């Protein structure tokens, strides 16, 4: 059950190409599970011309301390809304709705888990790693980005994982290449039965395929653009197959953002697959 609350900025600090916003959110830390996200309003309600909330996966929570409950969000300065958020200073107000979405499912048994993050998609993986370790799971982490500046959480990963593999496309840190070039080897070495992943769609598609080929279970958190974050606007949909084998356009904000990798029709995101429930029967679509 999400909470809508007026948070107060505690800090904004740089982390490579990104920034970490820490903001008070009373009542939110206790409810947050790894994979949950927060939706933040941009600007003042009466005057802002930016109407849509921005969604960020929750990187960490502190339920006690001098500020009461706070949450950490990793933000890339990519547009007007994120830019406004990163201009906030200590004490500024930000309207928050959180925690939102369906979090990562945790294994009942202490199985070996491999966590894969692309860019700042790694944000929710460290809370997850901690909880998996508490359950006795082995945790291996693979982090990748285009370049070193766009990696997030390398130190945090080293604190919580048995092994950490870093990849960059330009070779500026770790192995040259992509996370998926190394995933098979990491999973083999760790005897991984579950893969958790968060990052760009292309990466998630490749991770799902590798997991499936190894007979492993995959949990992928998608980054789909959202307007409301609470399930009423129907803009963040993607084609996902249900238990009944029927593909539906489902909302990534409430049915997701975490999906079983083999259920998402990755190659057909951005389309309505012809066998989708209620797909248009004629050329040209709805």
């Amino acid at each position, binding site marked *: 059950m999400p909470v809508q609350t*007026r948070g107060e900025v505690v800090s904004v600090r740089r982390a490579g190409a990104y920034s970490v916003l820490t903001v008070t959110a009373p009542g939110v830390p206790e409810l947050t599970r790894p994979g949950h996200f927060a939706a933040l309003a941009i600007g003042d309600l009466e005057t802002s011309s930016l109407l849509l909330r921005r969604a960020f996966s929750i990187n960490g929570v502190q339920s006690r301390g001098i500020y009461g409950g706070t949450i950490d969000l990793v933000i890339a300065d990519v547009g007007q809304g994120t830019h406004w958020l990163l201009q906030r200073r200590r004490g500024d107000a930000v309207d928050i*709705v959180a925690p939102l979405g369906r979090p990562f499912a945790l294994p009942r048994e202490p199985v070996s888990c491999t966590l894969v993050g692309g860019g700042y998609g790694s944000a929710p993986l460290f809370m997850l790693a901690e909880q998996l370790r508490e359950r006795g799971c082995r945790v291996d982490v693979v982090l990748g980005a285009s370049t070193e500046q766009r990696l997030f959480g390398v130190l945090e990963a080293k604190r919580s994982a048995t092994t950490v593999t870093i990849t960059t496309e330009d070779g500026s840190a770790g192995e040259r290449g992509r996370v998926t070039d190394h995933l098979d080897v990491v999973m083999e070495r760790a005897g991984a039965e579950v893969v958790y992943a968060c990052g760009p769609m292309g990466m998630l598609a490749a991770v799902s395929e590798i997991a499936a080929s190894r007979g492993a279970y995959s949990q992928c958190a998608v980054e789909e653009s959202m307007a409301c974050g*609470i399930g*009423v606007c129907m803009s963040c949909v993607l084609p996902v197959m249900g238990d009944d084998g029927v593909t539906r356009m489902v909302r990534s904000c409430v049915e997701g953002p975490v999906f079983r990798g083999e259920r998402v029709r990755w190659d057909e995101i951005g389309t309505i697959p012809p066998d989708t429930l209620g797909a248009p029967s004629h050329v040209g679509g*709805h």
Partner: protein
Amino acid sequence: MTRAVVRYDTGGDRPAPNVDMTASLSTFEMPSPILTASGCAASGRELDQFFDITRLGAIVTKSIMLEPRSGRATPRIAETPSGMLNSIGLQGPGVHAFIEHDLAWLHERGARVIVSIAGGATQEFEDIAKILRLQEGIDAIEVNISCPNVADRGQVFACRADSAAGVVASVRRSSDPSIPVFAKLSPDVTDLATIAMACERAGADGLTLINTTLGVVIDTDTMRPALAGVTGGLSGPAIRPIAVRCIWQVREVLPDIPILGVGGVRSGRDALELILAGASAVSVGTTVFRDPAAPMRIHDELAVALADRGFSRLADAVSYAHRDPDGEVEVDEDPEVPEWL
């Protein structure tokens, strides 16, 4: 159930204003003039996490069609100055699943409900109306003849008086006579008054004004349209003056028809503007995406705004901007109606 705290104090330390906020849309009476807008509240369940939806005038459901419908491909939204463009394409589960899951839940929850219906042909509207006629817990029907996100957009029913009237007459005939039927109209027409009058003559008990207005956003990085469906409906505060204009124009020619006002309302002050233009009640749409608790905040702000202007009853403010300089409400006694109507 935990709910969000109400963060926006509307009256400072002042006591709650003593204003009669009872509203009516034809025979449908409501304790509040604030409703949700079709397509901006799903079927109420999600918003019930943020405020008690039984306090609303009513939930106006997302438009339901006869069969399940996938809607359009993504991207479906683009943010615009003080607004957004959407191209959802009437995604929905179909009327039978709607009755089983959504309407049943709303009924059990005790919410007042206006069911919005949409169709590709007059027959589809009629079929849905006949199915809904057998259901309990529906307070009114809103006939969405103006969704711009359909493939034959140029031909939406609300673009022509005769096609609009045809659907309205069919739904009116097929629905429970004790339940009001409202027609939701498009602002994208040359002469809205003529279409509104045609709907009234066809039996509409009221009008919902307005649906979104058509727009296109081009992504200047990809240099292609931002939406997969190319065109989309513009909503949000950017279109509020258009909504006020449409309500005004229709009120001038139809002095008595109930109007449900919709378009860019984000505060009690904005709701008051639509009411002064002629709306008996107001739907809050896009603002819910930004502030899920907005409807009840706007209800409270509206009560304060009415009290500040000396109104003790909401009903007295309806169409108040149309009064003549002496304070009497101006009524056009004999609007010119084309002969073929």
